[in-house]
C-alpha cells in the first residue's frame, strides 16, 4: 500500500510509460479481442462464450434489447454489444465494462426454458436448453440475457453451467480467485502498484493525515498517539488514534483493558463550536479499577473538555445487524420481484409492504440519532461519546452521519471519501464480515454500510443543493461494495489490511500468534496464495471502474457555493460576553450524562469506575444531577412526544433564552440572518419525507414502468445544459474581452476573472481550504476565463477563491464574476458585510477580508477555555 504523498507524485509521472509496457507485449489480448471483441484484463481468460445473445436493457438504460456476444471469464460475465465501438487500446483497463457484471456479485442464476424456470446451482444439471438467462445480483441489479434460436445449444447450456459453477466460491477463501482473475497478472499488479493515490482526500493512514484532520477541524488539546502502532493494544483499532493531549502514552496504555476490544474513546471530529465527537466501545465491567486508572479513564473520556460529557448509547434504539439484514432482504424481495419466489405486490399495496419491511424505519432511526447528536454538538463545549458495545457498526454509521450533517466538507466527494476512510475503513468496520463476500458467514452479514449510504441519500434528497456529491456517487460506492476487489472492503480492520500489504512486499514477518487471533474467514485462510496476492486497489481509485463520463456525474454540475468561514467578529463578541457559562462549566466539572431514547439521564452505573451518585466526580456533578432532575420533572409532557423532531425544532426554532438575547447581536429582521454553514442539516423524518432510493433499489426491476423515462445521455438535463451554457458564455466572453483589449467600462470589470492566485503552500489554512471544501471541480469553475498568468492553478479558476486572495485584489474585481449574486445582494440592504453569506444560491457575496484572519473553524487558541463560540448574526 502506498503511503506518503511524495511517492505519489513520482508515480504519477511514471504512469504513461507504465501503461505502454503493460499493454504492448500482450499479444494475447490483441488476439482475443480480435476473436471475440472482448477486451480482457491482463491475465484474464475467457472460460466460455455464447454468440447471438441479446441483453435486455433495464428501463434505466432505455429498455429494449441489445444484441451481442456473452462471455464468461473467471472474473466476470461480460457482454459485448455487436456494434460497440472498438475499445481503445491505450485506455487504462477498466475492471468492468458497461454491460459486465462481476461473478462475485451474482446472487442467483436462473435459467428460463420454453416452459419452465430453474434456479441453477453449481451442482444442478439442466435438462433443457435455456432460452433466457437471468442473473440476480447482490447489488439489486437483474441482468437478463436472451439466447437466439441461432445460438448453438451447447453454448447456451455451457455458459449457463459455467456461470453457475464459478459465480459462487465453493469453499471459503475462494474469493481470491476473483481477485487473481482481475488483478493477478503481472501487468495488472504493476499497473496497480503504480496507481497514484488521490492526494486530495485524506486517507487517514499516516500520522500526518490525522494531524491534518485535527488541524482542519481546529481541534486543540488532542494529539495523535502511536501507542497502537503494532496493533498491540487493540487489534481492531487503527495504528494512529487521536487522544487527549494531556494523557501520556504510558497512561493511555492502561485504559485499553477497560473497554471492549480495547476500543478506547477516540476523537472523531470537532464541531466548530468546540464540541468533540468521540467513539468508544462499551466498558469492561468485570475489571478492578485502580485509582490511577480511574483518573486516566476520566481524562480519556472527557477529552479536551473538562465540563461535560454526554455518552450516547447506540445499543438500545438502533437496529441490530440482524434486524437490518432481515429488513434488507424483505426490501429486496419487494423491489426485485424475484422470479423464483414469485411474490408480486399489487401497486395499491406497495407502500404498505414497504412499510412492513421496516427498512425506512431503520433509516429514520439512524438519522434521528445522528440528528440528536448533531444538535448536542451544536450546543458547544462538551464531549459527546458514542458508545456501542463493539463500536464497529452503528458507531461508524452515526458518527459519520453526524459529520455529513454538520460539516460541509463531508458533503464533497473528497470529504466524503475521507470520512468513509476515517470512520469506516480505518476504525474497523467489519466490512469483510458484513459484506460476506465468501458467503460463509451468513450470521454476520448485514448491510450496515448500505444503510449509511441510504441515510446520506435521504439527506441528499432533502437538501440536494447542499451537497457537492451526487446520488450517482453514492450509487457507485454502493456498487463497489459488492465487488470483492477493493482493499477498503476486503478486511475487517486496519491490521488485516496492513498484514496483506506487508506480505506482498515481503518485508514483514508476522508476530507469533497473530494467525490465531485472526477472525475466522479472514484472509489468512487463503494463506498458501498469500504471497502472490495481487495488490488490492482502493475503492477510491474510481478510474479503475468508471470512465470519465460517469465520473463527471459524481459531482453536481452546479456545485453548492462553498461555505464561508464563520465570521470571527461575532464569534468573539459572543464568547466574551458570556462568562456565566465558563463559571458554570467550572463548577459542574466532570459530569456525565447518558443520552438514550431522546432524553438525558445519569444512571449511577454509567461509568463503572465511578461508584454511585449521579454525576459522581465531585459536588458539581451532584448539582447538575439535581438540576437535571428538577427540570426533568417539570416537563414531562414533552417526553411523550416524539423525541428528535422536537429537539430538531428546538434547535431551529426556540426562542432565545432570556439571558442571552441581550448579548447576541441584533437580529436582522425579516430578511433573515445568514445561513450558517455549520448548522447541521437536520433531515425531516416524517413519513412523507422519507423516500425510497429508487435509483438503487428499483433498478433491477425489469418491467417497464419501474422507471420514468431515462433522460438519455445525449439529451442532457436542462440544468446541465444551463450550466454548460454558462460555461460557453464565459468562454465567449473571454474571447470577446481578449479581442477588445481595452474595454475599461464598468461592465467589463464585473465579469473580469479573479486575478491569478499564487499558492502559498506554507499557509495551512489556505491549503486546507484549497484541498477541501473550496475546490469544486465544476464545469462552471473550469469555464472561468483563465487569466493570462499561467501560475493560476485550478484553484484560481474558482470564483470562490477570489475572496481568499482578495488582499491582492481591489474590491471592484473581488466582486468576481458572480454578477447574479451581487445583483441579488443589492436589494438586500442588511446584507452588507461579511456576516451575510448565501450558501444555497449563487456565488457568495464577496467580502474583502484578509484570508488568514478567517479560520475555517474557530481556532481554539483564541478562545478562552470553557467558552462557547456561538453563531449569531
Amino acid at each position: 500500500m502506498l503511503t506518503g504523498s511524495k511517492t505519489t507524485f513520482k508515480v504519477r509521472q511514471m504512469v504513461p510509460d507504465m501503461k505502454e509496457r503493460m499493454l504492448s507485449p500482450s499479444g494475447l489480448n490483441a488476439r482475443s479481442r480480435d476473436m471475440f471483441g472482448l477486451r480482457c484484463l491482463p491475465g484474464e481468460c475467457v472460460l466460455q462464450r455464447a454468440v447471438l445473445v441479446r441483453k435486455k436493457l433495464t428501463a434505466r438504460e432505455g429498455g429494449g434489447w441489445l444484441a451481442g456476444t456473452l462471455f464468461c471469464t473467471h472474473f466476470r460475465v461480460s457482454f459485448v454489444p455487436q456494434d460497440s465501438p472498438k475499445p481503445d487500446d491505450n485506455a487504462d483497463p477498466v475492471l468492468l465494462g458497461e454491460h459486465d457484471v462481476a461473478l462475485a456479485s451474482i446472487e442467483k442464476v436462473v435459467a428460463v426454458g420454453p416452459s419452465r424456470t430453474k434456479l441453477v446451482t453449481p451442482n444442478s444439471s439442466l435438462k433443457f436448453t435455456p432460452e433466457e438467462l437471468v442473473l440476480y445480483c447482490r447489488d439489486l441489479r437483474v441482468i437478463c440475457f436472451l439466447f437466439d434460436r441461432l445460438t448453438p445449444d451447447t453454448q447456451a447450456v455451457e455458459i449457463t453451467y459455467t456461470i453457475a459453477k464459478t459465480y459462487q466460491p465453493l469453499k471459503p477463501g475462494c474469493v481470491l480467485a476473483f481477485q487473481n482473475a482481475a488483478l493477478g497478472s503481472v501487468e495488472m499488479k504493476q499497473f496497480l502498484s503504480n496507481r497514484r493515490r488521490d492526494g486530495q482526500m485524506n486517507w487517514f493512514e499516516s500520522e500526518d493525515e490525522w494531524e491534518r484532520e485535527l488541524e482542519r477541524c481546529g481541534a486543540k488539546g488532542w494529539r495523535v498517539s502511536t501507542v497502537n502502532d503494532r496493533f498491540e493494544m487493540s487489534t481492531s483499532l487503527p495504528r494512529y488514534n487521536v487522544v487527549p493531549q494531556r494523557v501520556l502514552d504510558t497512561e493511555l496504555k492502561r485504559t485499553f483493558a477497560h473497554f471492549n476490544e480495547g476500543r478506547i474513546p477516540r476523537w472523531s471530529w470537532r464541531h466548530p463550536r468546540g464540541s468533540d465527537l468521540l467513539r468508544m466501545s462499551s466498558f469492561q465491567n468485570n475489571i478492578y479499577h485502580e485509582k490511577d486508572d480511574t483518573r486516566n479513564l476520566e481524562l480519556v473520556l472527557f477529552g479536551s473538555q473538562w465540563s461535560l460529557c454526554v455518552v450516547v448509547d447506540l445499543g438500545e434504539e438502533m437496529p441490530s445487524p440482524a434486524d437490518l439484514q432481515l429488513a434488507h432482504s424483505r426490501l429486496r424481495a419487494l423491489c426485485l420481484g424475484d422470479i423464483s419466489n414469485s411474490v408480486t405486490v399489487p401497486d395499491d399495496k406497495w407502500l404498505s409492504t414497504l412499510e412492513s419491511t421496516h427498512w425506512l424505519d431503520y433509516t429514520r432511526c439512524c438519522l434521528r440519532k445522528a440528528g440528536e447528536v448533531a444538535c448536542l454538538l451544536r450546543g458547544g463545549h462538551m464531549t459527546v461519546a458514542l458508545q456501542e458495545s463493539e463500536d464497529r457498526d452503528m458507531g461508524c454509521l452515526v458518527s459519520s452521519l453526524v459529520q455529513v450533517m454538520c460539516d460541509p466538507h463531508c458533503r464533497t466527494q473528497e470529504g466524503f471519501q475521507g470520512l468513509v476512510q476515517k470512520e469506516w475503513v480505518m476504525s474497523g468496520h467489519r466490512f469483510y464480515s458484513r459484506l460476506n463476500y465468501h458467503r460463509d458467514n451468513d450470521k454476520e452479514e448485514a448491510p450496515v454500510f448500505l444503510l449509511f449510504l441510504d441515510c446520506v441519500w435521504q439527506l441528499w434528497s432533502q437538501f440536494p443543493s447542499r451537497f457537492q456529491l451526487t446520488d450517482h456517487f453514492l450509487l457507485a460506492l454502493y456498487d463497489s461494495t459488492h465487488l470483492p476487489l477493493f482493499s477498503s472492503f476486503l478486511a475487517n480492520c486496519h491490521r488485516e489490511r496492513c498484514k496483506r500489504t506487508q506480505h506482498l512486499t515481503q518485508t514483514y514477518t508476522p508476530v507469533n500468534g497473530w494467525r490465531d487471533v485472526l477472525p475466522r474467514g479472514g484472509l489468512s485462510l487463503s494463506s498458501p496464495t498469500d504471497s502472490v496476492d495481487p495488490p488490492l486497489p482502493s475503492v477510491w481509485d474510481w478510474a479503475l471502474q468508471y470512465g470519465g463520463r460517469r465520473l463527471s456525474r459524481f459531482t453536481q454540475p452546479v456545485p453548492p457555493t462553498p461555505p464561508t468561514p464563520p465570521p470571527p467578529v461575532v464569534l468573539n463578541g459572543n464568547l466574551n460576553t458570556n462568562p456565566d457559562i465558563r463559571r458554570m462549566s467550572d463548577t459542574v466539572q466532570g459530569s456525565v450524562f447518558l443520552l438514550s431514547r431522546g432524553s438525558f439521564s445519569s444512571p449511577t452505573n454509567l461509568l463503572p469506575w465511578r461508584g454511585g451518585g449521579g454525576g459522581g466526580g465531585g459536588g458539581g456533578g451532584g448539582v447538575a444531577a439535581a438540576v437535571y432532575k428538577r427540570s426533568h420533572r417539570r416537563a414531562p409532557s414533552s417526553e411523550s412526544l416524539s423525541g428528535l423532531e422536537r429537539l430538531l425544532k428546538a434547535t431551529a426554532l426556540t426562542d432565545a433564552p432570556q439571558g442571552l438575547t441581550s448579548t447576541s447581536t441584533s437580529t436582522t429582521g425579516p430578511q433573515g440572518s445568514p445561513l450558517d454553514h455549520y448548522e447541521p442539516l437536520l433531515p425531516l423524518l416524517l413519513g412523507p419525507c422519507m423516500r425510497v432510493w429508487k435509483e438503487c433499489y428499483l433498478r433491477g426491476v425489469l418491467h417497464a414502468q419501474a422507471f420514468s423515462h431515462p433522460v438519455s445521455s445525449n439529451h442532457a438535463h436542462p440544468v446541465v445544459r444551463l450550466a454548460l451554457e454558462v460555461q460557453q458564455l464565459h468562454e465567449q466572453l473571454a474571447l470577446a474581452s481578449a479581442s477588445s483589449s481595452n474595454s475599461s467600462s464598468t461592465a467589463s470589470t464585473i465579469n473580469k476573472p479573479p486575478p491569478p492566485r499564487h499558492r502559498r503552500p506554507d499557509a495551512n489554512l489556505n491549503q486546507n481550504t484549497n484541498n477541501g471544501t473550496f475546490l469544486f471541480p465544476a464545469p462552471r469553475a473550469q469555464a472561468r476565463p483563465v487569466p493570462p498568468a499561467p501560475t493560476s492553478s485550478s484553484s484560481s479558476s474558482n470564483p470562490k477563491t477570489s475572496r481568499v486572495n482578495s488582499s491582492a485584489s481591489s474590491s471592484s474585481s473581488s466582486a468576481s464574476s458572480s454578477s447574479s449574486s451581487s445583483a441579488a445582494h443589492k436589494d438586500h440592504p442588511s446584507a452588507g458585510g461579511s456576516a451575510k453569506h448565501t450558501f444555497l444560491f449563487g456565488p457568495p457575496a464577496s467580502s474583502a477580508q484578509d484570508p488568514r484572519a478567517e479560520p475555517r473553524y474557530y481556532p481554539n487558541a483564541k478562545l478562552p477555555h470553557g467558552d462557547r463560540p456561538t453563531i449569531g448574526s
Partner: protein
Amino acid sequence: MSALGAACGKAAKASFVSYVIPEEIKAEKDFGKQDKTPTLLPGEVVFCGASKVLRYRQDDVSQRGLFGTLVCTNFRLAFVSDQDPSEELVNLFRNKMYGEDDIPLACVDNIYGVYEDKRKLLTGGMVKNKIPSKLVIHCKDLRVFQFTLTYCLGEEAKRIFQGITHHCLEPKSLRNLFAFSFCELNSFPEMKRQQKTLMFEVLDDWAQDLNRLRGACRLVDENAEFGLSPNLPQFFIVPSNVSEADLTPFQGHGLPMWCWSHPSGCALFKTSALPAAVLQEDPVAQAYMEKMLTAVAHNYLFSVKTEDLSDTLPSVSEVQLAYNKFKLFFLIENTTDFWVSDVKWLSSLDGCGWLDIVRQCLQKAMEVVECLEKENANVLIMEEGGSDLCCVISSLAQLMLDPFYRTLTGFQSLVQKEWVAGGHRFTERLNQLHLKDKEEVSPVFLLFLEGVMVLLSQYGPSFQFTETYLTVLSDSLHLPVFSTFLFNSQHHRHIYTQAESPHSPGSVGRCPVVWDWSVQFDCKAQELFINPLYTEKSRTPRASQRSQLHKHQRHLSLPGSGFKLSPKRGFFKDEADSLKKILRVKRLSRWMLSPEPGSSSSRDFYQAWQGRPLDYHGLLLPCVDGPWLRLWMQRYLRWVQEVQIFGGGLVTVLSRVYGLLEEVNALRRELDHRGGAGRSTARPQRPRAPGGEAPGPQVRLSSSFPFSGLRSSSSYKPSIPDSLLHGLGGGGGLGEGGEELDDAGSVV
C-alpha cells in the same frame, strides 16, 4: 407581542406555565385598543365581528395563541390579529384577495365545535344555541384554524358564532355568492383574450383548435342559443357524418363530442352514455347509438374503440369517499395527531385509496393514448353524465399527447375546453352552494390536477407551469369570485351572465375568469408559475412542425405491433356487425378490440416508448407503479410545519436554476454589449429568469416555499428542555442559535 402563553382549557397543566415569558403577559394587557378591521374588497360587506378571539397555533403543547378580531363578511372569515402589523412578514406570495389568516367562506370545509372536550361536527340546519368553547375550522385548502370565543363578550360571541355557521353551512343561492356583488362594483376589462388562452366561448376558438389539430369534424353552432338542448355546450364538434337530425334525439346523450385529433387522423371523442336501461330496451336508442359509433368510425377509416368509464373507474362518490379519507391525514389540528398518523404513514396512504384512484385514471388515460398512438384507432369514452371522469381521462390523455397543452396557455385552454365548456358540473361537484345532500360533491377536478401533478413531477422540464401553479389553481376552486368554477354548464352560466338578469347589465359576465391571475397575485408572484427549466420547442413554422411530428410518430410503431388495419370497407362492416351483436345482447363492452387493460400489451407500449429517447415535446407517459406515485407535497403538506424542510427541498434547486438563468442572461447582455448584436441573434433565446432575480437569496426557503405558515411566535419545545441544558452547563446553546433561525424561518 400579544401571544398568550397558557391556554384556557389546559392551563391547569403545570408544564405550560413555564413557557409564558413575563413580557408576554404584560403585552397581553394593552391589547384591543381599537377594533381592527380587515381591508375589505369592493363589494365586501361585514356581517358581524367579534374581538378578543383567541386563535391557536397548530402546535398543541404550548397552546399559544394570538388575540385578534374575527370578522365575518360575505366573502370570508377574516382574523385580524392584535399583533403589531409592523411585525407582519413580507410575503412574496401574497394573495391579493385574502390573507393568510382569512378563510374564504367557500373554502370552509367542516366546522367542529368543541363543547367541554367533546367535539361535534356542526352542520347546517342545526340549532346552534350553545356556543362551543372552541371552533375548529377545516378548510378545503387544508388549513386548519382554531378559535376560542370564551374571551369574547357574550353577545358578540353568539353573533359571530351564528354568523359563521350560517354563512358557511347553510345553503345559499348562486345569486348570493360573493362573485356577484364583487363584480358589480369592480369592473374587469374584458380580458385581452387572456394571453391567448382559448376560452371556447366563441365559435372561433373551437375552429382554431380544430384547425390546429387538423381534425376532420363538423363544428356545430346550432346550439348557440341553447335551442337544441341546455345540456349541450354552446358550440361543439361532432364527427362529420352526424347529421343535424342526429343532434337532438336524446338531449345530447350518446352524441360523440370531439376532443382531440391525432396527427394520424384518428380522434378522441367523449359522450354521455345513454342509460343502460334505455339502451337495452329501446331499439331506437340502439339504432342511434350504432349510428353514432359508425359516425365516429367513419371519421377516419380505422377502427373505433369505446370505453365506458363507469365500468372501469371508480364512481364519483367513491372518489369523494377516498378523498375524504385522504385529506384527513393533512388536516392537522395539533402535532400529536401528526405523530400518531406518522407511525403508519405509508400503509394509511395506501389504505385510503386516493393514490390508487389517481393511478387508475392515469392508467386509463394511457390506454387511450395507446389506442390513438399505436393502433391509430378512434376512441370514444363514455360515462353517465359525460362530464366527470370523461373530462379527467380525455384531458389527461391530451396532456400526454400534445405538448401545446403543457404550456401555460395551452393548459388553461385545455381546462376551458374540456371542463368549462365541456360542462363539468362545478357548482355541484365543488358544492359551491353548501347544499346539504352531498352526493353530487366530488373532487373530480382535483383528481385531474393530481394526475397532472404526477406527470409534472416526472417530466418537469416539459411543462411550462409549475407545481405552485397547480396548487394555486386548486385553491382557486374555492374562491367564489371567478366565473370559471361557478357554474354547472355553459347554459347555466348563460342564464346568469345574460343581460336579462336583475343584476344587469351582464353582471357576472364581468366576473374575472380564474386565468386572470393578476386578480389574485401580483406580477412577481405570478412568475413563480413559470417553470424556468421549460424550453420552448425550436421555433419552426407550424406546418413543418406538424409534419415533423407526423413523421416522428409514423415510425414509432413497434415491430410486430405496428399492424395497421387496412382501410377496407369490408373489414369495417364486420366490425359494425359485431357492434350490432354486442348492442343487442348487452350494453357496450369495454374495449372492443383491445386486449384486457393492464395486460402485457400496455406494458409493451410503455416499454417501447421508453426505449426511445425522451422528447420533452413529444409523447409523455407517466410511471404509475407503486413506488412512483408520490404525494403532492406542496398542496397537502404546505401548512404542516413538521414536514417543511428548511433550506432544502426542490425549491432550493430551482432557485439555483434561477441563479444560473440570471447568470446566463447577464453574460448574454455583457456579450452583446461587447461583441455587438451580430452574434447574439444566432443564439436561441433563453427564457428570462422571472423578475430578473432569483427569489432565493433574500429568504430562507423551505420546501413549502411560496406558502408560508411559519411565524416567529410559533414555538416548539425540545424534548431536552432548555432548563435542563442550562443545568447541564451547556447553557442554552440550543436555544441561542435557534433565535436567528427563528427569524429567518418566519420570512418564508
